[in-house]
């Protein structure tokens, strides 16, 4: 029983990591209808910026806020400079562009800050709840849920949020309504980048900061987003927790999988859900006109 409980809580903790990334993935998808394969690297790079600020003596919360702002601006700039010209290009060009961004960010981070692990400060006190889950991990879950709530409010109750949803779903009609579609997309990128940065800043204290920390997490983040529903931020967060817990339980209790095939589990999850219910557990099925 103790083992079971521990694995659940540990799963929730890792699940929070996946949920944070999944949230950023969904955010981008809602804005541009594409998966950004460089999402993880953007989050990692932002986290390094935060670390560098703290290392230079900036107090934690100031560094945090500054980093979010820089990440937001960075996301907007990347969209305007790199992706706007590709606006009408085929999907393949977009994928290649994401991959190019991946290489650039990963290598740049390694070159600037090298590859040794760096401990990242946590805003939460050290210690844990009876050894089950640390204060930091609980804090992370809280922050993810908070971000989710803010996003929900943004999309549901603000006019900008509405405009962004309109621009993503039907750019032409949106334009006719006077919505600056291009800037809505840029806004979406900025928000996704900022969410990713928050995720990275919270993840780094757990996994330790280094340039290669995000690839495995990104895959699980994608899995979480798919499982939960790629169009539904709440679904993505739920998906993240689900994937985290399931990964732990399957790794613990299913004999031949053990810890050796965890990535394969993610693979099977992604394919399985996509086949049975492509819109995910909580997503809305979109019907397209032929």
């Amino acid at each position, binding site marked *: 029983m103790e083992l079971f409980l521990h694995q659940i809580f*540990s799963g929730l903790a890792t699940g929070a990591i996946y949920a944070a990334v999944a949230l950023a993935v969904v955010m981008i998808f809602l804005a541009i209808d594409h998966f950004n394969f460089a999402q993880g690297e953007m989050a990692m790079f932002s986290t390094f910026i935060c670390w560098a600020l703290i290392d230079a003596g900036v107090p934690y919360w100031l560094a945090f806020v500054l980093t979010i702002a820089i990440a937001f601006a960075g996301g907007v700039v990347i969209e305007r400079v790199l992706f706007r010209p590709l606006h009408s290009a085929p999907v393949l060009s977009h994928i290649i562009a994401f991959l190019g961004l991946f290489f650039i960010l990963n290598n740049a981070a390694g070159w600037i800050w090298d590859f040794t692990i760096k401990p990242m400060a946590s805003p939460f006190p050290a210690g844990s709840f009876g050894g089950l889950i640390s204060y930091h991990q609980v804090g992370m879950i809280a922050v993810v849920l908070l971000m989710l709530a803010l996003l929900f409010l943004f999309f549901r109750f603000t006019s900008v949020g509405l405009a962004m949803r309109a621009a993503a779903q039907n750019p032409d009609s949106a334009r006719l309504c006077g919505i600056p579609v291009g800037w809505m997309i840029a806004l979406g990128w900025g928000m996704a980048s900022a969410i990713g940065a928050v995720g990275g800043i919270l993840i780094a204290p757990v996994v330790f900061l280094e340039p290669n920390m995000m*690839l495995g997490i990104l895959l699980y983040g994608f899995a979480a987003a798919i499982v939960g529903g790629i169009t539904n931020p709440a679904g993505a967060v739920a998906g993240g927790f689900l994937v985290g817990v399931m990964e732990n339980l399957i790794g*613990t209790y299913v004999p031949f999988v053990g810890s050796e095939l*965890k990535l394969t589990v993610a693979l099977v999850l992604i394919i399985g859900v996509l086949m049975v219910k492509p819109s995910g557990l909580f997503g809305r099925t979109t019907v397209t006109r032929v």
Partner: protein
Amino acid sequence: MNRRTAIALLTAAGLSLPAAAVAAGKYDPGASDTEIKIGNTNPYSGPASAYGQIGKTIAAYFNKVNDEGGINGRKITFLSLDDGYSPPKTKEQYRRLVESDKVLLMFQSLGTPPNSAVHAYMNREKVPQLFVATGATKWGDPQNFPWTMGWQPNYQTEGRIYAAYIKKNLPNAKIAILFQNDDYGKDYLQGMKDGLGSLASKMIVAEESYEVTEPTVDSQIIKLKASGADVFFNVTTPKFAAQAIRKIAELGWKPTHFLNNVSNSVGSVMNPAGPENGIGVISTFYTKDPTDPQWKDDAAYKKWSAFMDKYYADGDKKSTFTVYGYTAAQTMVQVLQQCGDDLTRANVMKQAANLKDLQLDMLLPGIKINTGPKDFFPIEQMQLAKFNGKGWDLFGEIISGEASGS
């Protein structure tokens, strides 16, 4: 021709002979009167890029050697290429360096899979594959692979050292092991099992592996604790070692904790994990940890520190990888110096197999490098140490791994 011309010619020939004899070095491709070309591959990109520091430290050290006059008047040209830890790329870079750039030898390439990819090739081409940067046991096999030699104490030896300690001091131990799911992790696992011998199946109650792509090893630690083990063998790379140490403390589990040599740096692992969490952890050493306060005033440490400041200023002085690279480079320099003017590949291997009680200053006091025609394991000694919250207290004798059947 007439007599005068003949005499002139003979005299000229006679006069030129001594000149030729003076410049007499015996050279294989890559060596000359002025230059020694050394090739290397290191992962400067990809998931293993943390190890790329080793290649950079070596390059910096060779710069220092060149600044100080080179080796027997010859400058070292160090050609180090990225292989991204990908064996096919390693093969390509090796063939480039050997066939196109024509280096004299390959030195300190990193990783078991990359080195495995070129193992047969180097022995076929009869080019030295020297002092490979991996602890796998298969590099010390002069009978079948006379052109390949390892350098560091191999992982199996280390595993056996821990096993011997456990058998002697904790005979009723129940052992749990966490290992990285690759050659390095499995080699340590094998060493521990070999060292425990017939007791292995009884004493090892749990084994868990992890991939480098996983975010944390928390789930594995939880599982291992649940096995009821009271001894924990931690075969992980720095990032995961720190996570493991921290999680074990969080869970309130207090096993006797053996930590593998790759991840025992105070600065890169013990401090990030929370120094109080690591008190009592046991590991082995053969080099001096630059972040351990006990070496602060040590002359060798100061010399190394000055070298880093001058030649590799953005290197990480907290990482043991830089000490590793420094000491390995010194070993290479020693071999080349012993070669004198005979810079043939055969002589390089001969001198590499002829290191007697070589003491290098960043090795622990008492640890010496020894090789022979049948002994292709340069460093076989290690010393146990226990972490005290600030640094490592060395204890016991210097243990030699020779007895462990190389």
